[in-house]
Structures are given as C-alpha cells and as structure tokens.
C-alpha cells in the first residue's frame, strides 16, 4: 500500500509539472526556448508514465491514463511547487531549477532502491534531469547576472516560490516506512546537499538565498493550492467529457 502511495507522489509531481510546462508550447520567448520547455515537458510526461504505470499495476487500476485522468484533486499527491503558475519565463525557470536540483539528488538516491522498478525508473530519470538542470541553471545565471531588471525579476520569482521548497525535505509516515524498508529516500538528508547546490548557483547569479520562510505543506495528504484545480480542469476535460475516447 505504501509503495503505491510513494510511487504516486513521484509520478504525480512529474505529471503536473509536465502539464504546466506544456502550456509554453507556442508561447516560448524564442523558438529554441519553446522547444526546450516542451522537450522537458515531454521527458516529465515520460517519467510520469513510468511511475504511474507501476502504481496502476500495483493497485489494479487499468492504466496510467486512468490515474492521470480519473482522479480528483484530493487524490493527487504532487508537490505543491509543481502546480504553481508558469508566470513569466523567469518564474518558470526558477521553478524548474528548484525542482530539477532537488530531483537530481532524489533520483540519484532512489536509483539505489531495493524496489527494482523504482530504481530502474530513477536511474533513467537521472540522465534526463541532468540536462534539465543544466538548462534552467544556465538561464538562472544569465538572468540573475544580467540587467537590473532581469535580476529583480528572478529574485522576486525565487522569493515568491520559495515557501513551496520545504515540502521536498518532509518525511511522513509513508516516507519513513519506505526508508526503513530500503525502498525510499531520506528526503531530510538531501537538504544539506540541495542547499549547497542551490547556493552555488545563486552566488554565480548574484541572487540571494531567501531568509524569511513560511513553508507551505499539504500535498502528501492530497491538500493542494487552488492552482491544481486549474491544471486538472484543462488536463482532464477531454477524457472526462468523452470517456474512453480514441484518436
């Protein structure tokens, strides 16, 4: 039971962020960036598919699609940061940087999981997250170390989304159980490595690490910000309106 929940959390985070990023399709600031953001979106959908197929197999659901399209928001366990709005390009880059820097560390650990499927999916994801991180990191440095205006915009973006990064390192009952069984990752332990990684980039980008924090939480129990409704409304509209439609 716990493995299902644990797998859903990972798959849902990839799915919802992938859906958010797909909104950049035809809206990117340049053609190259349009392609970059949608490529990252596609990788995230692929990762989501792997994890959700596994969750579906474990809990007897028909398919990953059923999990993606037929659950309500309180049955989703994606991290709150993944459902936040795209905002401007800098907002999206900041969200992506914070997400990818955490998930690079997370998947590197999960690749050592005793669960063969989770470890295989994690090892595959590491390869992709590496270049996602290179992309957002280089943009963060360029924007932070750019003009006064670009610096201010990304610093604001960091300050605005920062309160959603606390969830990365939370450990609830399921996390602890998975950790004890050699399946899951010690998220709390990744905080030190993540801080180091993020600090180095922020320094290069002339950006400040936020001090005042009031970390938001809830996703592990299906409690979300209102933004998840917006994402699901768009993502689930067609399969809900026309169940089992084929194209």
């Amino acid at each position, binding site marked *: 039971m716990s493995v299902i929940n644990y797998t859903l959390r990972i798959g849902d985070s990839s799915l919802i962020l992938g859906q958010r990023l797909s909104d950049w399709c035809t809206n990117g600031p340049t053609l*190259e960036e349009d*392609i*970059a953001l949608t*490529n*990252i979106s*596609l*990788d*995230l*959908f*692929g*990762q989501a*598919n*792997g994890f959700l197929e596994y969750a579906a197999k474990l809990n007897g659901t028909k398919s990953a699609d059923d999990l993606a399209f037929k659950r309500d928001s309180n049955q989703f366990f994606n991290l709150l940061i993944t459902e936040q709005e795209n905002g401007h390009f800098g907002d999206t880059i900041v969200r992506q940087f914070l997400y990818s820097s955490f998930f690079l560390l997370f998947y590197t650990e999960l690749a050592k999981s005793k669960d*063969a*499927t989770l*470890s*295989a*999916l994690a*090892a*595959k*994801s590491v*390869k*992709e997250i590496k*270049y996602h991180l*290179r*992309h957002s990191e280089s943009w963060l440095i360029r924007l932070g170390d750019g003009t006064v205006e670009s610096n201010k915009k990304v610093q604001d973006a960091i300050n605005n989304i920062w309160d959603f990064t606390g969830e990365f390192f939370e450990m609830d009952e399921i996390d602890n159980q998975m950790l004890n069984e050699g399946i899951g990752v010690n998220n709390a332990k990744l905080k030190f490595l993540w801080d180091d990684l993020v600090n180095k980039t922020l320094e290069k980008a002339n950006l400040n690490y936020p001090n005042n924090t009031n970390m938001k939480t809830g996703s592990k129990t299906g409690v979300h910000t209102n933004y998840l409704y917006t994402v699901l409304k768009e993502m689930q509209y067609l399969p809900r309106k026309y169940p089992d439609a084929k194209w």
Partner: protein
Amino acid sequence: MQNGDVKYIWDILNTVPDPEIPVISVVELGVIRNVEFKNNFFIISITPTYSGCPAVKAFTDDIKKCLKDHEIRNFKIVLTYDPPWTTEWMSEETKKKLLKYGISPPSEIPVCPQCKSCQTTLVSEFGATACKSLYKCKDCLEPFEHFKCI
C-alpha cells in the same frame, strides 16, 4: 517459425527502421535489448531511448507489423528500463550512417555533417526530437542536429 530461431528474429528486427531516423534500424539504435524463446513464445525486450520518446509506440507497432508480415505470431514485446538506454550502445558503423544522413553522431566533440569540421557551437540543448540538440558549424556556418550523448 516455431522452432525458436532467435537469430532469425534479430535479422527481421534489423530491417525495422527507426521511425524518425530511417537510415538506422531499431537494432542499431540499441532499443532491442534481448530476444529469447520461452514456452513457444519469442520474448522481445525493448527499452525507450528517452522516457517520453513518442517513437516507442511507433516502433513497437512497426515491430509487430514486421513480425506478422513474416508470419510470426508467437511473440510478446516487453518494456524494460534497466539498464537505461545509452548512446554508447551505438556501433561505429551506425554512427557513420547517421553522419552520412546529416545528423552529427553522439560524441564528445560534435562533427559538422556538411564539412566535417570540429569547430562547432551549441545553439540549444534541445532539438526537434528528444535525442537531438542543435549546433552550428563555425567553418561552413551551417546549422545541424547532434545526437546527444546520454
């Protein structure tokens, strides 16, 4: 084909082109990981190049069709993720085919497929498909696609 000739299956699979880069086969691409004969069935293990690569569905369908065209019906296709796909599985011969086709093959230093120069510059890590990035040649100034090393 009931006697379990695994080599024959490999030969057939080697005629199935990659849906996006038709000059190389799915075998050359390295996505066919294993073929074995078990309980009267050929078990064909395939692995995706990238997690979200839409070509997986396309080449799975192509493989099914090709095997059926060869009157082979006793097969199953299974998806595996371990070990994760890597461009290191590509042979030198396959890389030459890519270069000739106009795609710079996976290598530390990309080679311009037009003039073979090694003086190139990265335009974007992301290209028209998940497996390729965009480069520009500093000598002949032509843009080109480079197969990412992964």
